[in-house]
């Protein structure tokens, strides 16, 4: 009698959960048009999954990532990055490694242009970043590009990222800043270096 009563309740709760689950959690992907081309794969996904750029490590409770999940991506990876996402998002696309050898999400541009060659600093001119240890990893093209950015040493939320995406000039400036900062470490040792005035 006791077991029947609680098994009934258990069954009821399971039915309730399954009913509610259809409202939100989706296990099966909606049908897509036939003739879906492989090369359109990610672009088409972004059409529906518009919040992917805001939640690169996986959708996590409402609309909030802890700030340090952005600045220290391994926390975001540990707490929010679904294990099956690697399957849908090729590691070779849209990923870079920061100064701490951690994967950093950089969304693939769906509407941007190719990166500028021989780029030079462009207005509006901004002050160099004050923290010499700061590394900025930027992927983005010229004006109108949809490049994302992940900064270390600066707090940045998904919304901030979206704002930056709309300013291609800023991205170019960051390209320049990054180049200026990283060049001393990355350039080869001067040959035949002599004394300097």
């Amino acid at each position, binding site marked *: 009698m006791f077991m029947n009563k609680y098994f009934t309740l258990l069954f009821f709760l*399971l039915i309730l959960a399954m009913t509610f*689950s259809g409202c939100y*959690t989706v*296990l099966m992907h909606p049908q897509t048009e036939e003739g879906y081309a492989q090369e359109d794969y990610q672009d088409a996904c972004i059409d529906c999954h518009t919040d992917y750029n805001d939640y690169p490590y996986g959708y996590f409770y*409402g609309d909030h990532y802890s700030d*340090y999940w952005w600045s220290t991506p391994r*926390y975001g990876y540990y707490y929010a990055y679904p294990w099956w996402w690697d399957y849908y998002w090729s590691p070779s696309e849209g990923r870079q490694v920061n100064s701490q050898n951690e994967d950093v999400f950089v969304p693939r541009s769906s509407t941007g242009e190719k990166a500028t060659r021989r780029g030079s600093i462009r207005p509006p001119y901004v002050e160099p970043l004050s923290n010499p240890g700061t590394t900025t990893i930027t992927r983005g093209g010229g004006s109108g590009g949809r490049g994302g950015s992940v900064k270390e040493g600066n707090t940045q939320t998904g919304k901030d990222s979206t704002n930056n995406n709309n300013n291609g000039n800023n991205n170019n400036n960051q390209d320049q800043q990054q180049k200026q900062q990283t060049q001393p470490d990355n350039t080869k040792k001067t040959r035949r270096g002599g004394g300097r005035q």
Partner: protein
Amino acid sequence: MRSAMIVKSLLYIILLSGLSSCSLMAQYIDQVEEITAGNFFGYGARQMGMGGAGMMSFDGSALFYNPANLARIPRIEASLGLSHQEYTDKSSVREVRRIVDYTGVSPTEQTFQDRFAGFESVFGNAEDSKSNTRLNSAILTVPYPTYRGSLVFGFGVANVANFDRVFTLSHSDSASPGNRITARGNEFQTGGLTQWGAGAGIDLSPRIAFGLSLFIYTGKHDYNWRYRLDSLPDLQYGQEDYITDKYFGWNFKPSLAIQMNQYLSMALAFETPLTMSVKEDISTTYDGDPSIYVDEVEYDIRRPFVFSGGMALSFNEATLALDIDYTDWTQMEYKNNIFMERYNDEIEAYYDKVFRYRIGGEYVFPKLGLSLRGGYFVDPLPVKKQFIDDDRNGFSLGFGILIDRVMTIDVAWVRSGYNRNSDFIYASTYDAGDELTASHNLIVDEDISYDRIYVTSAYRF
């Protein structure tokens, strides 16, 4: 010489009947105490480092604390935890004794008459300690790939209650120099209750998750009591009990986790009543008697609902968590054994309604991959206040590290303790129907403290 032999025989019979009743019969209200009641050991070093607040934590132990939060685990996680306990019991026997008259006369405190006439209690104390290391938890969580929301399954085992305890009784009565009665008892307990769990958490909306866990309980409790009484030059009495209880039961736990806003999250859960079948094997030996007296008892014990709530406040690197449980232990009852069911009234008189709360904080140093934690908890004993001198509470400290982006190691230290009193039936009398009519009790105070270390490591694939 002949009269001395008769007196000796009578004393032996009285003591034999009285003392054996301490362990074999639940005649006194204290005997309805169940070691499985209100004896939560705790699992998960992260949660225990935060005072035991685990309702809003996002790791495999959510299977037991709040299965709805399984939905917040995006990767396959395997975790393993160990625990170590140092348990100390300091006991003392009051100089005042208590007479309990079970025929309806109100109990009075006075020096026992009859055999103990002329003797006075001498204050006695003793200390005993025990340490043990056990597997604390082993949990596997498996997220099912989803296109939206989350569905995560969890499977695991945890040590939900620990029976490792010791107690030493040291008592003496003195009438004159050289004329002394001494009593000494050693209690040694070991074992635990294991909770096997299988559950799932699913997102019902972007901010609401539902979870359900099914728990199966198995356990074993080994109890050993050695008692020796030396009374006058011509009487020695010794007794030893071996009692083994085996437990089996099941219940389940539904829960909700709700993200109220960016900073505040809340959880609600309840555990359905847990009915455990208990099979008890008893064997008793007496000094000078080569026989072993064995018995076997089976009964069910039904633990009432447990209602739980939790909340967490998160401000980026800082988290503050609070958990509250409510259990009405007066609703606990014996079942499927009419002899045990007679004591259900005494359960109501002995047990109490209990709020148990834990509060803890965590601060993360992301660049270091380090988390520091601390907590405080009040975990009241489930019995009436008259049996408690100082209720159970404690504090905890802990830390955790994230290695690379796949592995965590968490360590917690918990310090806790309580003071309680109980009656020890020193001698007793029975009527012709073998019903207890009166007992002569010593009042024993126990100062119990323990330190526990929890270590849990998790790997996310």
